[in-house]
């Protein structure tokens, strides 16, 4: 017998990285929010790699933080090693990555959720979402309690009909043996939502005491740590860091894998889900890249509290005995005892092209979806979608326009646009190469790009917004000063240039011009810049980047202006594509299915050719004239 329980504004299904951000955003924006999780003890659990960030993912975390999300703050609280990657490359690809203490990370996030007003946590499985007249009305749990609500955000991660597999062992559970959510898929089917099956995997964990670290290379964290959250100063979060360790597979490892490949459920056909190309299992790596005689293996601590070490680079679904044999061939792991086996996990997720850019289903008002259940992968991608879905659920209930970040504003915009426009045939991972305007979308300027938006939305405090305005003013003033300050070809300047192996001046120039030289920087120039005031490090960094890469930044800004032209060509919602005569059949079908919001979005749909776009533009031209 079902019975009706308390009603809520927003119900969030799942308390993983997407669910936490979604629930926090909705609750903080004043919605009475209920978040369901299959286990209270696994809120913000990290079932795979023990780190947050990395190339392009670090960008996402900083953007989530700039909008007023929690992930950045939480990893700052709980990191045990931090590293800025790619520091020898351009500022656009500098990426922050931190090893987390997994248990701490989960506990701290739970603490935040538990202490947020308007937010209620409930352990339980949602079995059904009620929809009346294409509008969400509530949810029903597996225990038959009905919670009326105005919006639902689905953040079910890898739990829908989850199945964990290694060798011939197959368990119908979510990650780490947690219960799967087996009922919701049927409801999605009933609602006419296209559901797909994806696969991912995780490597084994081994006992630290059984590892011979003398055969591995130590990987230390950075001495000077950069916080993920713009609200933290480096000195606030300094702490002792732990090391990771690098070792390699070898021919012997590969031979064992190849000898047993027929016992892998991936190759026997037992696993049908589509796995990610960027994060292949070790058996995939060995088969697909047979010319490589070794692959990297990283040993990463799971936390300060435990001896468990994560074997990065060797996820697998081979049988237990093969896993033992394989891991034992790796230098340093000869005697390693496995604490947890590697496994592959299959799960149901939705085809994200059914969503609008707000992450609401096109056909069901008030029903949002975020995170791995949208076909993405990774904690950071999940959190990024979570905060957007949370914000937009709240804005919808408040009768406000959805917050949509476009490809020129944020990696979050790229991520969501890719998912909803191009769809994905594998768990989607963020990459810097996916962002066409990445010189503008740097991790260092996420606050300058997005914090004002976060403030307007209501997730950023007045105090934080004021600080941002002050920072922006300081940057602008200092850039101007550098552009105006001239330096003559005097003796001191020439000496300085000589010392820094820079070409001597023929005539006077500005500090800004000198800064463009590769061998000079804002920092180095302080020697001949007598009037310089002491400015905060983050201000100096912005001044340096903006002046140094001025030409490239301007070039990208011009490209963005081009991009915005098509992006701003909105397509009326009531457009009848059948009237656009010369569209090819495929394009016609795709446009009817996707219902893109702008010509820009239409142009990115696969199967819509430039000729179709020309035809569409001509039609819109005519359509607008007739209005």
């Amino acid at each position, binding site marked *: 017998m079902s019975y009706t329980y308390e009603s809520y504004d927003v119900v969030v299904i799942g308390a993983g990285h997407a669910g936490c951000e979604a629930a926090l955003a909705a609750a903080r924006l004043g919605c009475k929010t209920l978040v369901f999780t299959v286990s209270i003890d696994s809120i913000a659990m990290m079932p795979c790699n023990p780190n947050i960030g990395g190339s392009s993912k670090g960008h996402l975390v900083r953007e989530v933080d700039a909008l007023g999300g929690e992930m950045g703050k939480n990893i700052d609280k709980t990191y045990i090693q931090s590293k800025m990657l790619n520091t020898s490359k351009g500022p656009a690809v500098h990426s922050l990555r931190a090893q987390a203490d997994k248990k701490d990370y989960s506990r701290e996030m739970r603490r935040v959720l538990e202490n947020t007003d308007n937010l209620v946590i409930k352990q339980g499985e949602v079995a059904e979402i009620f929809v009346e007249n294409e509008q969400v009305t509530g949810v029903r749990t597996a225990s038959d309690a009905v919670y009326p609500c105005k919006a639902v955000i689905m953040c079910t991660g890898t739990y829908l009909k989850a199945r964990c597999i290694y060798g011939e062992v197959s368990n119908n559970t979510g990650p780490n043996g947690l219960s799967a959510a087996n009922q919701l898929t049927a409801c999605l089917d009933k609602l006419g939502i296209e559901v797909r099956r994806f696969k991912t995997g995780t490597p084994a964990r081994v006992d630290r005491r059984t590892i011979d670290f003398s055969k591995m290379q130590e990987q230390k964290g950075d001495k000077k740590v950069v916080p993920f959250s713009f609200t933290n100063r480096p000195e606030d979060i300094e702490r002792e860091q732990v090391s990771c360790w690098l070792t390699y597979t070898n021919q012997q490892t590969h031979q064992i894998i190849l000898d047993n490949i027929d016992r892998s459920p991936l190759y026997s056909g037992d696993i049908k889900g589509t796995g990610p190309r960027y994060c292949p299992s070790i058996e995939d790596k060995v088969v697909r890249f047979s010319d490589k005689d070794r692959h990297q293996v990283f040993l990463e601590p799971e936390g300060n509290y435990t001896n468990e070490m994560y074997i990065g680079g060797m996820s697998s679904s081979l049988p237990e005995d093969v896993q033992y044999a394989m891991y034992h061939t790796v230098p340093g792991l000869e005697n390693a005892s496995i604490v947890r086996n590697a496994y592959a996990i299959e799960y149901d997720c939705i085809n994200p092209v059914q969503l609008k850019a707000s992450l609401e289903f096109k056909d069901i008002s008030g029903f949002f979806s975020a995170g791995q259940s949208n076909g993405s992968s990774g904690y950071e991608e999940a959190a990024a979608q979570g905060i957007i879905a949370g914000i937009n659920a709240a804005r919808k209930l408040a009768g406000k326009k959805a917050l949509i970040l476009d490809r020129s504003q944020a990696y979050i915009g790229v991520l969501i646009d890719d998912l909803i426009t191009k769809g994905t045939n594998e768990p989607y991972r963020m990459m810097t*190469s996916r962002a066409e305007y990445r010189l503008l979308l740097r991790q260092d300027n996420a606050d300058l790009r997005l914090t004002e938006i976060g403030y307007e939305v209501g997730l950023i405090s007045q105090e934080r917004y004021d600080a941002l305005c002050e920072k922006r003013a300081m940057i602008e003033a200092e850039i101007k000063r550098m552009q105006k300050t001239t330096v003559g070809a005097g003796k001191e300047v020439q000496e300085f240039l000589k010392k820094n192996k820079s070409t001597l001046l023929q005539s006077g120039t500005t500090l800004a011009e000198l800064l463009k030289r590769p061998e000079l920087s804002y920092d180095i120039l302080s020697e001949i810049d007598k009037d310089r005031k002491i400015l905060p490090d983050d201000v100096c960094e912005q001044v340096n980047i903006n002046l140094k890469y001025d030409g490239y930044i301007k070039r990208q800004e011009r490209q963005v202006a081009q991009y915005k032209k098509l992006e701003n060509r909105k397509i009326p919602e009531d457009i009848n594509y059948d009237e656009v*005569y010369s569209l090819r059949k495929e394009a016609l079908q795709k446009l009817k299915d996707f219902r893109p919001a702008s010509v820009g979005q239409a142009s990115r749909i696969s199967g819509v050719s430039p000729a179709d776009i020309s035809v569409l533009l001509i039609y819109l031209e005519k359509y607008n004239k007739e209005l």
Partner: protein
Amino acid sequence: MEHDTIAGIASGMGGGIGIIRVSGNNSLRIVGEIFATKKFVHDNTLREDSWDKDFFFKKDSHTIHYGFILDDDGTIVDEVMVLLMKSPRSYTCEDVVEIDSHGGPFLIDKILKILMHHGARLAEPGEFTKRAFLNGRIDLAQAEAVMKLITSKNAFALDSAIKQLEGRVSKYIEKIRQEILDNMAYIEAALDDPEHYDLNGFSDKLYVKVHEEINSLQELLDNFENGRMKSEGIRTVIVGKPNAGKSSLMNLLLDEERAIVTNIAGTTRDILEERVQIGNLVLNLVDTAGIHDTDDFVEHLGVEKAMEYLEGADFIIYVVDSSAPLDEADEKIISLLAGKSGVILFNKSDIDSVLELRDLKDKIEWDCIFFSSKTGDGLDKLEKYITECFLEGNISFNDQIYLTSLRHREAVEEAVESLYQLLNTIEDGMPEDFYIVDLMDAYKYLGLINGETASEDLVNKIFKDFCMGK
């Protein structure tokens, strides 16, 4: 309006006169209204007043039907075979009906008129191809090549157009594009997984590679001029002072009286341009007003244009009147010819010559051909000379790849520009991720030639070639 029904002679490929193509969403109805199968016809007259006008709607695509075209009175115009191709399985992706008539131009014209009367519109040149492109049937490069085929009057140009259809240009460009993509993928892999792939020494290698790519593309650009000559004809300018015999020469070459031939100096009032075939070459012949100072406005316009044409000439024929001594006008012309390629025609060699060959030889290093514009003596020598000059001279036509449209040239030029920019970026010591900006530009510009877009290529390439992630 793109979706109306058009009809035209499908004579693009090698003059297949006799085929009328009808394309558009009313083509089945329109042809149905004017076509009757044999069972409605007896002794060359229509047996019944009405016939099955929905005939083509009932028939399968890709079927051939024998019958008769009727005019509005029901009179039989022609006996025809009709080929039915329904959307999207046709050249234009629209409903297409092709009428294969035995008739000559007169009947073809008549059938077209009847089609117009029933609601079809006469197709503009290349309109079928345009629709094929707009409907995604063929890519831009193919479309442009077909357009060239339609307008080409030249065996060489035909060859070039066909080669383009076969994708030689596409392939050549594609090879360079792939190299660019490879380099981008490597950089991106290293950026994405810096602990796995490193970029030490990469910029030096890339620098060399980009130089090679620029050279290859530059070669293509250089050949553009040759390509243009082949497909549009060799732009040949005839110069000479008034009454030297230019127009007579032109008429001889054209073999009909089109230019105004007169012995009154200065009556060739405007520039005339004609195409003429010599062997396998097409010459675009440009006749000019005599080059001399004049107050006559029209005459003046002609002179100005003549100078302009000289600048754009691929080959120049300088006609000299041998019955008069060299004068100021000749001097002036000769001064304009410096550094250009061409031949001297020593005209009026049938009259006693006043001018000595060596008088000219001192001033200009061109070969000289004796010629009589009156008798045509020497014309064969001229034709042979031009053919030899282009076919066996420095310019080799045979194994090069040509860009034949201005749009292609622009795209290649932009790509070259981007690659030069990349060399600067490398020289400036910028970090490797900045290379992508220029590489991506070059990649996209080259993609324009085949009408391809770049969006997912890079990501797919990275995943394919590099073992990524943990």
